[in-house]
Structures are given as C-alpha cells and as structure tokens.
C-alpha cells in the first residue's frame, strides 16, 4: 500500500548555504520561548522563593516538558518519516522503569541500612540485599531480588539502560518489521501489538517489576533526600527544559539537512527513494531507533517527577494519545508537536483535575471530568477532517498573510 501524504506541511528550505539557525528561524523562536518560560517558572516557583507556582504545578509543568520531548520524537518518526508508530510511549515507559529501578533500589537501600544499623552488630551485604528485596518485592509476595535488578544499585548502569533498552528493543523490533516491508496501518497495528505485549508482560507479578504495583516513591532522589520536594521539582524542571531544548536542537538539525530531505522523501514516495539507491528500511530503522532512545530519555526524566510508574502507563492507549498530540499540534513541524503536547496535556490536567468550573444548565450539569474525553475525541476528529495541518497550520496562514 503506498502512502501518499501530500497534504503534509513542508517547510521549503530557502536560499543555500546559510547558517543552520538562519535557515530555521523557528528554532530560535522556540529556544527563546523555552528559556523565558523556564525563567518565569523558576522565579515564581515555591522552591526558589515567591511561591506563586505551587510545587505540584512545577512538577506538572516539568512533566509536560518531557511529554513535549517525546512528542517531537514522535513527530520525527511520524510527521517526517511517515511511520505511524503506536509504540513510542512504550519506550518512554521503559526509560522510566530503568531509572525507577535505581531510584527505588538506592532509596530502599538507604532506608534499610538505616534500620539495620540500629542493631547491635552491623549487617552483612547479603543481609542488606535480602532486606531490600523483601522491602521492594514483599508486595508481590516475593523476597528475592530478580536477575534484572542485579545492577539496580548502580546509577551509571541504569542510566545506560535508559538508553540501551529502548534502543535495542526498537532496533530488534524495527529490524524485524521493516525487513519484511510491513508498512502503513499494518505497521501501526504491529507497533501497537508490541506495546500491548510489553504492558501485559509488565502486569505479571513474576516478571520482577512488581506487576501492576509498578515502581513507586520515585520522587525521592537518593543522595538528595534532604532536599525538599519544592527545590527538587525545580531542578527536575530545569533538567526537563534542558533536555527538551537539546532534543529540539538535535532533531531540528537532523530534519533540516539532507537526512531530513531523505526521510521526508521516504514518507512521500518510498519506492522512488529506493530507486535513488537509498536503503529505505535502513533509514526507517535508524529514525525509529533514534526516536525510541530519545523517548526513553524523556521517560527517565518524567517519572521521577510523577513519582510512580506502573504498567498502565504503557498501555497502547498512551501511545495513541501521543499521536493525537502530534496530529493536533501539526505534523511535520517540530514546534507543532510541542504545541500539541502542551495544549492537550495541560488542558487535560485542567479539565480533569477539577480546575475548570462545571457548567450548570439546570436540566443538565456538564461535569468536565466526564465530558473532557468526549470533547477531545470529537475535537480530534474535527482537526483530522478540517485542519490536517493542526494548530501549527495557523502559523503558515499567518506567515502567508504577512507576505
């Protein structure tokens, strides 16, 4: 099945051989906005002084930045390369699990050592490990440390896992899928199946990741247990902003050059690209894996702010929401993905968190927590039907008007 997505928005690269930023003015704008936003949030945050923005709101904003990062990754793989992956949130979750293992292990170890130190004689290493295991896995009726937790106490190892596990999974899965030329909706369904398999796997109690309990207490950072959450939240906010900024620059660089040209060409007509001598499957695999890695990093920053991760986070629906954000924001432009992620996720928190006033008609009362999903669903249908370029398309309109 050949996919023709000719309606897609395309920024035509203008004059040759000018600087990267000159060619991509949106990058400058974006970085400026991000910097300003970070500054404002920091100044107004509870942790840094004024306290106009509560700690929980700082966390939500920091988490939103992480969602923006995975959204731009999704935009590159879907909006630019034409692969509608319904599995990128799985990579996000894996990143979260990888860092969560260290957070949970290291913190439990500190607590356990504290408890055992109260005894008359000091604990052996085996006793500590045993107590940690009992503490973490008591909830699933086990007291043994599973094999995959062998190096959970090592931060560098788990940080490597944040990148390696999503990367390897994407590499193997992508290799299998692209090699057999699975494309279009088939590929989407296959990635969804992968996500489903992963979440079902994690739901089991005996897989060593605490089943549906997931990993919890991730907001406590070992080594910084004395730092109040209000300050930690700002640190994580900065880290998320830095990651988003770096990710944006990186992806903007990736998609602006000849590489971007090739992957857009693959999206529009992969047969033709093949006859130009490019290994289409290799490129797809490259983009799929690269974005999976970035998704993993975004997840590793997100979940310490969320404090808890469980298999429900990885459910196929999450990955579809990701596609919804990118579609609403506007595919094929990085800032579109950011706009979509910010708009939808903040609107969702606002409406479902009870922030929005309910509307009383007398005969019927609109409770937003009940109606938000209906609104989102229908809104999404309307965007797909009438604004295929999404919110980002408005910028094109404005620019054209100015000209």
């Amino acid at each position: 099945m050949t996919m023709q997505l000719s309606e897609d928005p395309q920024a035509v690269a203008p004059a040759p051989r000018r600087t990267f930023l000159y060619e991509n003015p949106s990058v400058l704008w974006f970085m400026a906005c991000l910097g300003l936003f970070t500054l404002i949030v920091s100044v107004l945050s509870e942790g840094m002084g004024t306290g106009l923005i509560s700690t929980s709101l700082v966390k939500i904003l920091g988490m939103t930045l992480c969602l923006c990062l995975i959204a731009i990754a999704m935009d590159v793989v879907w909006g630019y390369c034409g692969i509608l992956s319904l599995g990128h949130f799985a990579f996000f979750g894996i990143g979260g699990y990888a860092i969560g293992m260290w957070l949970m292990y290291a913190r439990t170890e500190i607590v356990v050592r504290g408890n055992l130190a109260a005894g008359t004689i000091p604990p052996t290493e085996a006793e500590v490990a045993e107590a940690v295991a009992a503490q973490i896995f008591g909830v699933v009726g086990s007291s043994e440390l599973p094999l995959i937790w062998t190096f959970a106490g090592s931060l560098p190892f788990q940080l490597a896992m944040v990148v390696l596990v999503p990367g390897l999974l994407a590499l193997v899965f992508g290799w299998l899928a692209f090699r057999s030329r699975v494309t279009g909706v088939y590929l989407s369904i296959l990635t969804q199946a992968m996500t489903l398999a992963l979440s079902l796997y994690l739901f089991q109690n005996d897989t060593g990741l605490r089943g549906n309990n997931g990993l919890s207490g991730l907001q406590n950072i070992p080594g910084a247990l004395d730092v109040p959450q209000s300050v930690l939240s700002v640190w994580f906010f900065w880290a998320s902003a830095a990651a988003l900024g770096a990710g944006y620059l990186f992806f903007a660089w990736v998609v602006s050059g000849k590489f971007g040209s090739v992957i857009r060409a693959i999206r529009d007509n992969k047969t033709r690209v093949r006859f130009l001598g490019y290994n289409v499957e290799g490129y797809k695999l490259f983009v799929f894996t690269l974005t999976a890695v970035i998704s993993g990093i975004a997840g590793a920053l997100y979940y310490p702010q969320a404090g808890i991760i469980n298999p429900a986070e990885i459910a196929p629906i999450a990955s579809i929401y990701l596609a919804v954000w990118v579609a609403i924001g506007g595919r094929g432009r990085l800032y579109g993905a950011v706009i979509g992620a910010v708009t939808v996720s903040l609107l969702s928190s606002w409406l479902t968190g009870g922030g929005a006033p309910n509307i009383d008609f007398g005969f019927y009362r609109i409770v937003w927590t009940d109606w938000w999903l209906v609104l989102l669903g229908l809104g999404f249908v309307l965007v797909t039907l009438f604004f295929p370029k999404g919110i980002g398309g408005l910028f094109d309109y404005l620019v054209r008007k100015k000209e």
Partner: protein
Amino acid sequence: MTNLLEVSDVSVTFDGFRAINNLSFAIAEPELRAVIGPNGAGKTTFMDIVTGKTRPDSGRVLWGERQVDLLKLSESQIAKTGIGRKFQKPTVFEEQSVRENLAMALANRRGPFSVLFWKATAHDQARIEELAAEIGLADRVDHRAGDLSHGQKQWLEIGMLLAQEPRLLLVDEPAAGMTPAERAHTTDLLKGAARSRAVMVIEHDMEFIRRLDCRVTVLHEGAVLAEGSLEHVTRNQQVIDVYLGR
C-alpha cells in the same frame, strides 16, 4: 563492445498471466536504445525486473564486466550499482525544492550516517547548478518541485537520474504530455546522456523515437518481436500486424 546488461530467458507470471515470456535482451555502454510495443507488451514489467521491483520466475539478469547477478540485489543496491530509473508518471518529491531533489540524487554515499553529516561541498554545489542548467531549471532551483510544470517535472526527474551518474538509464515514456518544444529539449537531454552511458527509452510516440535516431527493440506479449533500426522494424510484417491489430 561488451554488453553492460544482459537479460536472458526471463519469465514472470501474474496470477496465470504471462507478463514476460522468455525475454532476452542486451544493451551496451554507451548506447541509446528505444523499446516500443503495444499496451500490455510487458515494457514496464521488464523495467521492474531490471530494477528489482519484480522478481522473475526464471531467467538471469547479469550486469557489468563482473557479471553481477542483479536478481540477488535489492532495489536500492541495484540503484547503487549504477542503474537509474525514470517512472512513467513523473515522480519527483513535490514538497521539496529542486535543489533538495537534486542533492538527494547526487552520487554521494547513501548510508544514514554519511547523509546525516553530509555537507554540500563546492563540487556538489557546482554539480547541482550545472545539472539545473542542463535541464533548464537554473532559475528555479529553490522552488518547490510541486510548483513546476509537468514537463519541468519530467526534466527534473531526468536531471535526478543524471545526478545519480548511472551507467544505465531506464526512461519510461519521458515525452508523455509534453509540448513539441519540450520534446525537442528532452530528446537532446537523452541523446546527450547516451554519449557516455547506456540509455533505454520506452516510448509510444514514433515521432519521438525517430528523433532519437537509435536502435529499436519491439516487445510483444512479453517477448522480443524484432530489433534493429526504426526503418528495419517498421518494415517487419509481424510488427505491422501487431500494431495494426491484424
């Protein structure tokens, strides 16, 4: 003069329909060759086989001095060995500029990492400008390819083929939908290209082929019916029967 491409006894069947039937064909380098034939003669399928899009049921396709078996290679590998193809319908990347289209086709390394770190050298720049001039699009290099006229798209695609620096060019109906002036330019382009490489043109239009002034192969029902100069084949009784439908 050795053959660049040798196709021998190739057959392919779609759902019981023999699209290609024991076809044998050879082309040398440099050479300009026109392939004609009525609808359904298997012209496009023949190109599909050479470029790796369709796998034949039997037969051999050998390439170059080292007699490489093309049937073992993927489409992109075949393209990299030096076979360029222009499709019947102009297929340029409409969302991208003429420059980007040409840059993609330039004979540089094709791996993802090389492409990611690729920067146009002065030579690349010059080559793009030169090609653009050759296909008459010098003043439109930074325009969206989708905004070009039909004929210009055809030229752009030929330009992309030339940028690939292939040893064999397969061109499917390049003159379809062109004005007479555009046809003349296309003829020149192809003849120019054929000075240093093998060019195979599929075309319906006899006038166009006459102007190409080259050896002609007539395909019918998936096999070669006749081969020789245009005068020679048009005098062939079988060819006349086929074209007049008997």
